[in-house]
């Protein structure tokens, strides 16, 4: 009897903790949506930013900046990440080099984003003279995103049955032909899913942007990779902490809501890709 009561209490505690994460997610969303939704209208989304009177302008340049940044990060991180995963899963044997690469990936995934910021500043802004620009920020965030893309892509490659590779090789295909015709088409949706989620996380990063380049105010939108740019997360940060307009916090929440929606939409797109693929796959 005593054991049964104990059992009930402990399992109840576990259930509570399990549900808590759902509760946290829901309350975070409510706390952002509730103040944020009040300031969102068409002008807020599509208007140009006005620093003097924040109620007049919109965050269009910040949305575009974050969008450009996402493209930049994708260009520099996705191909490298996928190629590295192909090497690790398709070509590499358990050599010292491969163990070093795996160690490097795991450690890169744990490096704090602010440290990537310092690294990016030293290498891209100063050493390579890119200045505090869209290009420098994209490269910095790409370095941070590569380990995520690798991990997700390797997962996708591992899901492809060995028979696919062996079948092609038995028919006389070279290893690359086997990968290109049999492995990649099956692994690609998984790789895309992982990459989109990695990109979404990179687009929400703020700390590196403080160091390598985002700006709070600019005329128009950037038209070259060497331009400065505005970004949604940095915009939230400045509005929330360094702007003295009485409505600044509400506008920060509005911007945060747009950012969260953007990231969730990307995650949703990734999940749809994954779902469709799972339904259609042949093994």
């Amino acid at each position, binding site marked *: 009897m005593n054991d049964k009561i104990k059992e009930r209490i402990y399992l109840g505690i576990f259930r509570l903790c399990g549900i808590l994460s759902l509760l946290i997610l829901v309350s975070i969303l409510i706390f952002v949506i509730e103040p944020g939704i009040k300031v969102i209208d068409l002008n807020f989304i599509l208007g140009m930013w006005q620093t003097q009177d924040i109620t007049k302008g919109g965050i269009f340049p910040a949305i575009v900046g974050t969008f450009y940044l996402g493209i930049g990060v994708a260009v520099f991180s996705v191909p490298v990440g996928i190629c590295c995963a192909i090497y690790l899963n398709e070509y590499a044997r358990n050599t010292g080099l491969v163990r070093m690469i795996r160690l490097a990936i795991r450690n890169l995934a*744990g490096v704090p984003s602010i440290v990537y910021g310092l690294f990016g500043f030293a290498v891209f802004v100063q050493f390579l003279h890119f200045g505090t620009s869209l290009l420098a920020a994209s490269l910095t965030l790409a370095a941070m995103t590569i380990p995520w893309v690798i991990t997700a892509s390797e997962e996708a490659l591992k899901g492809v049955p060995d028979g696919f590779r062996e079948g092609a090789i038995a028919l006389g295909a070279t290893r690359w032909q086997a990968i290109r015709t049999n492995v990649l088409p099956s692994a690609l949706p998984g790789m895309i899913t992982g990459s989109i989620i990695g990109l979404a996380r990179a687009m929400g990063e703020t700390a590196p942007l403080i160091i390598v380049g985002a700006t709070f105010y600019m005329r128009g939108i950037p038209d070259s990779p060497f331009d400065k740019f505005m970004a949604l997360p940095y915009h939230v940060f400045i509005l929330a902490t360094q702007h003295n307009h009485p409505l600044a916090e509400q506008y920060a929440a509005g911007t945060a809501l747009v950012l969260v929606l953007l990231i969730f939409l990307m995650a949703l797109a990734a999940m749809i890709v994954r779902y469709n693929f799972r339904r259609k796959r042949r093994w």
Partner: protein
Amino acid sequence: MNKRSWEGVKDRFIAFFFAANGILTIIILIGIFIFLAYIGLQAFHEISIREFFFGKEWNPTAYGEPKWGILSLVTGTIYIAVISLLIAIPLGVASAIYIAELASPFIREVLKPAIEMIAAIPSVVLGLIGLLIVAPFVAEIFNLPNGLNALTASILVAIMALPTIISISEDVISAIPESYREASLALGATRWQTIKGVILPAASSGIVAASMLGLGRVVGETMVVLMVAGNSRAFPTSILDPVRPITSTIAIEIKEVVQGDLHFQALFALGFVLFLMTFAINLASDIFLTWRQGVR
């Protein structure tokens, strides 16, 4: 025949190309180490190592005699790491047990994406919620003028560490062979006794690894602490004191420094210390994870 050998050459070239991408990750890691060390270590031409690591006062812009002691900043980082892990580890492990052992498949399908979603929420958004909701709440409970302190920051940072701890612990618990549970239940143990006596011990090194990875995230978290930890350089004595961890010090001061001067170098030295801390934490967690695999 000629065509075949051309395919062979092409194949080898392509293999080399993929390997080069792998090697790039090593280059990035070493690059981070070298650039931070190169710039950071220059600071020690003028700052004594003793002052840097054991000085309690950090005040690089003081008129006359700037102070370069990082001890109060490191203490701030440790405060937030300890408090937030005290919150996140029990919650994370308990909810991992729930998801892996108790939840119905339907609830599992709801909870797992929810946890992924928490991981996807940008830290600046959590910082904003800290400013708008959590800080006023903490201020009211403890009767403080404002709620910007170590405790508030720790609560929010704990939320950031939760997804890491939950998902890795859950993987480890799910990987425990079914026969372990069956043996325990067959001997008449209740589910709680099975969890306590069989599941937790079998998963312990994996849980330690998950907690270490959580610690790595907590130590490196910047935006939340920058926005809600209070940013005081004074040496903290209570969890309700405002603190300024290593990360937020770098974020605040990097914009104010002249590139290449001593203060700039000292911030890189600070970044280097942070890098080494997280590197050591990750390495330790790695050892715990591989140790577990070795046992199997």
